[in-house]
């Protein structure tokens, strides 16, 4: 059984459908990358998993539980964390408070996870008392991912985690994603840096116009000439 399976999903934000029957799955332990041109519905597909899209048709199942119509806070409790692409930190709050907010629904002692998250992102430990809004873009992205990890999610949803980052930070964020995955968290990620992202993915999907175009292992997609010409800049 897949950890997450999306079956023939249709829906959008109330107007015309953006998702036109997407099929997608994430197996436990995988990094799955979704690429495609602008307007292909990549981010919408991810938001749909987290209950932020009006789903008209189709089904979402997480670890055997039907989550098609569940609210975000219920999904968080089931073990799904979501990092939006933009305004993904509480800018006026400190790094430490951002992480506490990430653990908001936890009623148990989360100091162990806090220490682990600081271990993954050492720069955040130094900046723990700084306001998140005062950090650089790359550090802010670290805060956003660290916040999502506070729930010890089984599935981490990342919406373009390297958008707007320098090559050095992009590299660093990808390294951290592999590290987080090695720790047992499955990852579903939308990325613009398709080449790099597919390079570290177990499997990938190419979407166009809200539907599947290609689906294969990351390596095979990278080797596919059509995909390369369309999306990877030749």
């Amino acid at each position, binding site marked *: 059984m897949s950890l997450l399976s999306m079956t023939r999903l249709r829906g959008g934000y109330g107007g015309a459908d953006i998702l036109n029957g997407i099929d997608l799955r994430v197996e436990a332990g995988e990094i799955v990358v979704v690429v495609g041109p602008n307007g292909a519905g990549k981010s919408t597909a991810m938001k749909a998993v987290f209950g932020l899209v009006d789903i008209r048709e189709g089904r979402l199942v997480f670890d055997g539980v039907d989550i098609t119509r569940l609210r975000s806070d219920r999904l968080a409790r089931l073990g799904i964390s979501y990092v939006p692409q933009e*305004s993904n930190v509480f800018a006026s709050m400190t790094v430490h408070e951002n992480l506490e907010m990430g653990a*908001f629904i936890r009623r148990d002692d989360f100091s162990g996870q806090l220490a682990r998250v600081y271990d993954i992102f050492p720069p955040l430990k130094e900046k723990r008392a700084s306001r998140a809004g005062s950090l650089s873009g790359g550090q802010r992205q670290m805060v956003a991912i660290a916040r999502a990890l506070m729930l010890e999610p089984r599935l981490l949803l990342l919406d373009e985690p390297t958008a707007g980052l320098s090559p050095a930070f992009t590299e660093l964020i990808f390294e951290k994603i592999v590290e987080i995955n090695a720790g047992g968290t499955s990852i579903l990620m939308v990325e613009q840096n398709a080449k790099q992202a597919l390079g570290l993915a177990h499997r990938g999907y190419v979407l166009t116009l809200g539907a599947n175009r290609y689906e294969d292992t990351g390596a095979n997609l990278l080797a596919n000439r059509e995909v390369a010409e369309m999306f990877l800049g030749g």
Partner: protein
Amino acid sequence: MVLEIIQLTVYGIVLGSIISLGAIGLSLLYGILRFAHFAHGDVMTVGAYLALAGVTGLGLPIWAASALAVGGGVGLAVLIDQTLYRRLRRTAPVILLIASVGIALILRSLVQFVWGPDTQVYTQELQMPVRLLGIRLKPTQLQIVAGAVILVVILHLFLTRTRTGKAMRAMADNPELARIVGIDTELVVVWTWVIGAALAVAAGIFLGMDTRLQPTMGWHILLPVFAAAILGGIGKPYGAIVGGMVVGIASELSTMVFPPVYKPAVAFALMVVMLLVRPTGLFGAPR
């Protein structure tokens, strides 16, 4: 001359304490609900009169009457929110705003209906001003400033140390992300009303202690309260405290030049200048 400036500044701090308490609530409500609550001044009025009922009706000391009034004012605010505002939250912001103007009129009329239109006082006792280095200060004025400081400290501890307080700041900062991390946003809204109304009731009682009680007292101070909230950058409770002090002190100092009836005009002028020069407030990022 110098003594007069100092004297007026002291009065300004007293007035500023009252305005600040109102402005904090207004600012918090705006930050959480994106809603300019026009009935906030009249919540102050209701609070002041509830305390009066405790003092004259039940013969309670003012502090006990105040505690009762805070309870009553908070209950009323939450009731209004849950029965009226809550249903209107998904409509256009202007509808919510007009609804709050309606609530303001209803509250003021209720106060006038129950307690009458005449001015009233908490105590007929004559207040002997204390003299400190040539500055006159009534004991009630000291109590007002001390009370405001205590309330602000409690608010600060609530916002920075408690789970609910942090959730409130998180929601004011980024409502979408607050929902994503699983914060119960409706519960935060209720808490915002509890805090906002409690501070408004305190401000109303302090205003009644400083001057007299009148059914229009809250409506008349609403403009300076709004000016303070905007000066501090609406949505920022800490800014509202500074804004309240600036408005209070500027209003009192203006009486050296203009007749006292123009005090609200001074607050309004400050607000307009601020909106023209720096619409995000004293501490906001310049646009």
